[in-house]
């Protein structure tokens, strides 16, 4: 049953998966705490016009074009949400609709033909290239460095932006940097897990840890560890069960979240009983 688990392609998949999981787990905590789950979902899908251009212009390549599309999308959302009347996901929704419409028009006008939609949405961690692994490693290092250097600022501005602003918290610059970092992490995760599963991995491990901890530092550390474990566990389980790895990773993450939520609810009931 466990035959073939040491195959080189699987080792590469595990390495790629773990490297993708580190930034997604880390950034997922702030995605959750800042209510950016919709943005996290949208930014992956909004790479669509970039991927079309990448397919039409082989010299550009899908990574560069998808990254450009994601960063443009992030910049638009960052600028648009400065207007409080448009906050709460309205700008993200409008930008996402625009990106999908643009992608559809480009698909026809550039005569690209059919794109591998399933791979765009769900990725293929078993088919990642050395370049994909290298980009994931660079993104993981960048994310750890940025979060490590800016954690006090990020924590303070996330908790209380009004207080942090006059104290030098630079909330808007932090917002822009965070959404740009999320965009880079999602684009680097596309070959391995696709746009839909990248969003899931941004949100679900962080949400799982959030229901079990009340402090930020343990939340960050545990979200990264859980993200890596779920990714690796899902890839191995998918190999054993002969199922698509992305779907198994997402299902595993969902099951673990359900167990954590049930555990928290049971602990709450027990505390009430003890109090009585």
């Amino acid at each position, binding site marked *: 049953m466990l035959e073939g688990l040491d195959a080189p392609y699987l080792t590469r998949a595990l390495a790629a998966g773990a490297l993708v999981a580190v930034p997604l787990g880390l950034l997922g905590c702030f995605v959750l*705490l800042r209510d950016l789950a919709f943005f996290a979902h949208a930014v992956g899908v909004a790479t669509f016009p970039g991927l079309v251009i990448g397919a039409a212009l082989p010299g550009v390549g899908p990574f560069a074009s998808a990254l450009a599309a994601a960063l443009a999308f992030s910049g638009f959302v960052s600028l648009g949400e400065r207007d409080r009347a448009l906050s709460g996901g309205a700008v993200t929704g409008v930008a996402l609709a625009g990106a999908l419409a643009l992608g559809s028009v480009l698909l026809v006008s550039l005569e690209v033909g059919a794109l591998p939609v399933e791979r765009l949405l769900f990725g293929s961690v078993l088919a990642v290239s050395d370049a994909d692994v290298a980009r994931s490693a660079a993104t993981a290092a960048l994310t750890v460095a940025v979060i490590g250097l800016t954690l006090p600022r990020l924590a303070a501005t996330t*908790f209380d932006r009004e207080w942090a602003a006059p104290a030098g918290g630079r909330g808007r610059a932090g917002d822009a940097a965070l959404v740009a970092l999320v965009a880079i992490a999602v684009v680097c995760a596309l070959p391995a897990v696709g746009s839909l599963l990248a969003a899931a991995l941004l949100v679900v491990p962080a949400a799982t840890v959030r229901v079990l901890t009340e*402090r930020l530092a343990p939340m960050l550390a545990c979200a990264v560890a859980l993200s890596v474990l779920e990714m690796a566990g899902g890839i191995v389980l998918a190999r054993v069960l002969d199922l698509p790895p992305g779907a198994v990773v997402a299902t595993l993450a969902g099951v673990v979240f359900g167990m954590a939520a049930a555990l928290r609810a049971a602990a709450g009931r027990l505390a009430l009983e003890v109090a009585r």
Partner: protein
Amino acid sequence: MTTATEPAVRASGLSVSFAARTALEDVSFELPRASFAGVLGPNGAGKTTLLRALLGTVTHSGSASLTGRPAYVPQSGGIDPSFPVDALGVVLMGRYPRLGWRRWPGREDRRRAREILGQVGLEREARVPFAALSAGQRQRALVGRALAQEGDVLLLDEPLTGIDVPSQEVILATLEAKRRAGATIVMTTHDLVQAARVCDRLLLLNRSLVAAGTTSEVFRPEVLGRAYGGELLVLDGGAVLLDDAHHHHDPR
């Protein structure tokens, strides 16, 4: 270089507009060092905007200046109470600006934060999650965060609103101790009784500065009436505010 006689807070011709609405118009005043100023006025009078203008976080015309380092307690409405942080962590955030936002608080910062938690009566709640604290305890933690900034001018936006009386007393005693140590306190409030009791200067706003001075100068029915209008019921030379159901007090 600052001098002992230089005002701690100075506003000159201060005006703030949001789109077509004027929030503050031509406000001028000075507050001496180590004063405890109450900023009063009905809802929408521009109290919060005045604090933001003094801090430089809203675009304004005219001038606003603070002598020394500011510390701030904004209204708690913008805070996500479920954020994963405990009371000690909240107070430690006050050290971040002093540390340059990149260094982590060290042992001395933690010692100082625990000392401040003691001052605001939260020494036993140091490791209690912010979400599990009562409204009064949360407000005390937020005041503790401002104390950890070790500012020369403390600006507090309705720090006493919606919290229990013991917490109000702890906060006021802490602020008075800070004032005695030389800091200048500027506090917005709807509570005229508290303001009369603890403040030695009052600023009465209604988009412009209606009056500034001592309690006896400002707490006169004709002066209060200019700010609160028909929302004020005058009784035997005293006054009862009717503008806000949860701030219904006799100021005498």
